[in-house]
């Protein structure tokens, strides 16, 4: 039965609304059937496993994936690169994450994200201007015209990809992103080749950039990763490569979905959209509630146990595959009152949308700022926006869940604020 439920979660037919399935799943904090994964669906159990040192993120500790519908890792970064810190345990994880954080956040770079604010504002403004000048306000695809291009450009700026290379970068990013979202009807061999080529080209490109920054460092993150010389020493070229590839992929797919899920939710709650239009500051609690209510990362499918452990009365053997259904924990009525209600005024909102523990989302401060800016500007500038299709077509991916397109219409676009 569990296995059937898992298949249903993966089943595209349930992509638009997986929440009833999660509710079914939560009847048991841990579900397991035969040799498939152990699926954890309740808030407190997920929260404690994310802080449990007996849980590994390193696939090499898996005994067998067994009958795991997501056994093929969902965000395959390719075999040529060493695993990024997302897929490593301490101490390697800690060292690489620490080194990556040095140029990104406190205590060494407390202003990095905040200082990007004006630049992000400019990017958002420009993309909305493009919508205005596209001439067709009866049919705007917010994904293709806004939510997709925005985060890639942000990552380019953050890493220090030269402006003139951004278009090439966009193409690679898009190809790799598409590989995360397998189309069952497409030709896997064809797509596989495209992905491999894109990964190779991107890798070569980044390697070249890293070499160049080693000689002529700038103020961008790539330079700082390439020339790092802190208490943890320096990154190897391969480490810098897999880290920047991680930043690109993880920092990109998730933000697209956060923004798109956000607009979709706001369009379904016009009262909240109206409040946001009047008070851009409301974007802060709105984004937090979105991370609970419609998190871009629905589940973590690649944890494993280093020992036999007991969770909510279920014995999970060493080396078992664990799925932590973050989106289900976020709707656990034992943790959140009226969990299926979208309520930006919610006070107690320690959601699992960005994970928790040592792997909690590295890019969280940037993702929050991007989403807050994007949603508040869209709310302010789009006149009378409305959904043309509800539910919209979703992407295949059950892990990184979001609409593939979000078709809206509006009456006009207000000018940028002076």
């Amino acid at each position, binding site marked *: 039965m569990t296995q059937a439920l898992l298949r249903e979660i993966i089943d595209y037919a349930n992509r638009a609304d997986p929440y009833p399935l999660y509710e079914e799943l939560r009847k048991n904090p841990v579900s397991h059937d035969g040799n498939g994964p152990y699926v954890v669906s309740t808030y407190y159990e997920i929260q404690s496993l994310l*802080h449990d040192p*007996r849980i590994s993120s390193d696939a090499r500790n898996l005994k067998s994936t067994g009958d795991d519908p997501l056994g093929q890792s969902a965000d395959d970064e390719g075999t040529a690169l060493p695993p990024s810190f997302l897929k490593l*345990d*301490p101490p390697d994880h800690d060292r690489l994450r620490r080194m990556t954080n040095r140029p990104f956040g406190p205590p060494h770079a407390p202003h990095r994200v905040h200082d990007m604010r004006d630049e992000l504002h400019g990017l958002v403004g420009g993309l909305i201007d493009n919508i205005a000048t596209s001439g067709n306000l009866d049919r705007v695809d917010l994904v293709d015209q806004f939510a997709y291009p925005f985060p890639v450009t942000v990552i380019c700026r953050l890493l220090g990809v030269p402006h003139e290379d951004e278009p090439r970068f966009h193409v690679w990013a898009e190809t790799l992103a598409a590989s995360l979202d397998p189309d069952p009807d497409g030709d896997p061999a064809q797509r596989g080749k495209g992905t491999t080529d894109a990964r190779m080209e991107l890798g070569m490109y980044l390697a070249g950039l890293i070499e160049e920054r080693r000689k002529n460092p700038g103020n961008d993150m790539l330079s700082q990763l390439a020339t790092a010389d802190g208490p943890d020493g320096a990154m190897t070229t391969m480490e810098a490569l897999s880290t920047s590839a991680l930043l690109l992929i993880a920092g990109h797919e998730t933000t697209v979905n956060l923004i798109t899920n956000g607009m979709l939710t706001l369009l379904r709650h016009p009262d909240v959209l109206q409040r946001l239009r009047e008070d851009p500051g409301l974007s802060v609690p709105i984004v937090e509630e979105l991370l609970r209510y419609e998190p871009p990362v629905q589940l973590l499918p690649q944890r494993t146990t280093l020992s036999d452990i007991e969770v909510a009365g279920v014995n999970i053997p060493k080396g078992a595959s664990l799925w932590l259904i973050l989106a289900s924990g976020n709707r656990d009525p034992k943790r959140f009152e009226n969990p299926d209600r979208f309520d930006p005024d919610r006070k107690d909102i320690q959601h699992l949308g960005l994970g928790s523990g*040592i792997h909690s989302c590295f890019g969280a401060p940037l993702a929050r700022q991007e989403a807050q800016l994007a949603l508040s500007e869209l709310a302010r500038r789009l006149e009378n926006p409305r959904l043309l299709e509800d539910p919209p077509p979703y992407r295949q991916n059950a892990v990184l869940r979001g609409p593939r397109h979000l078709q809206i219409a509006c009456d006009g676009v207000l000018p940028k604020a002076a």
Partner: protein
Amino acid sequence: MTGERTRDGALEYLKREGRIVIVGASLAGLRAAETMREKGFTGSLTMIGDEPYEPYDRPPLSKQVLLGHAVADHTALPRRRVIDADWRLGVPATGLDMAARRVRLGNGDEVEYDRLLIATGVRARPWPNEEEGSLQGVFVLRTRDDGEGLQRALADNPRRVLVIGAGFTGSEIASACRERGLNVTVAERGDAPLVGALGGVIGEVAAEMHREHEVDLRTGVMVTALEGDPSGRVRAAHLSDGSTIEADVVVVSLGAQRNTEWLAGSGLGAGPRGIACDAGCRAFDVRGIVTDDIYVAGDVARSPHALFGYQFLSLEHWGNAVAQADTAAHNMLSESADRRPHLWVPAFWSSQFGVNIKSVGVPPMGTEILITQGSLAERRFAAVYGYQGRVIAAVTFDNCRWLPFYEHQIESTAPFPPPYSTVDRRPEGNKPVPADFPDPSVPTHGPTITLSGYSPADRKMTFTPGR
């Protein structure tokens, strides 16, 4: 009218029109007041504090304030809500009449109560020789004024600072001095810093932190005398090993004393170790009988903890003050069946020499220690303390994200040594070693208190800083 209804009526009356007095206007007092108002208490609320300031936060005083990153008078505690209290600040409570339900104040006023909460906390233990302790340049660090004074003294670029005592506060002060580029000597009676709180194994790591940051760390020594110049400024300290340290600033960091003297003769079970209370924060009187209208919370309270063999613990922990205040406030306004026990798992944190130190449980109860994650040499690790085959405490250095797991291990009396594997387990984490706490019966660690005299009237307590 049934007895049930009478009791209900009394409680309703208390909530509506009762008089609640809180002695101690710091973290615990403030949080208790807020909780009472939250629970619908609309009667009169009096807050008595001996300092002239509104409640402020102390942790920054030994860190950001000393570094000059924060100003001492800007560390006011954020308010969770309006408490609408009658504030009596700058006036100490000087006595308690339990029978008449009155608190006496230093200015001669008396305040009547229906319910009393005592949250008078602790104060810094002063230098035992009063004359030496009053030399200019000799400081303790507990209050806002202390913090401000010490910060100014450090800003004057003294040639050398001497810190007496290498507990958490002493170590944080030494760390701040080094960050300011000042020469600093630390004199510690034990074999290593933090040894009383975390034991010798971790103490050795702390000692390396001091030395690596060029602190002149002297362990196994006591300061026997402070010496002033003719103008009354401190100029040197004499050590038990015969050496002399010249210093312009001396910080006495010998722990804390509980503020219970004002209760002498009141009949309440109050003494140097705090005010004994039950798990529901109700104070005991000297006969060992629990009172029904006097409650205790925060550093001054000493309460039995079910998880630690019902030992009476007095905890100088920020989180304990908040949680205990909350429990006390709840219980003060509840029928006995609705009262809650204070079951907070002890936890504290410190920040020194750039390292974040956190602990849960009661490390000094531990007899053995096992490094479960990371490495002592890298100064980034998690360690658990074992006591009679169970996990009793844990400490992390720059590794605090794992702490909730260990807290749960303590709460569920998990076995020690842990039978499971963890990420980042190194060879040194395969075998427990003695935790190496100082033998409490040997007066090398912590000051000693002795009693003399026979009849209760002439019994005297003598404080001895060392052998």
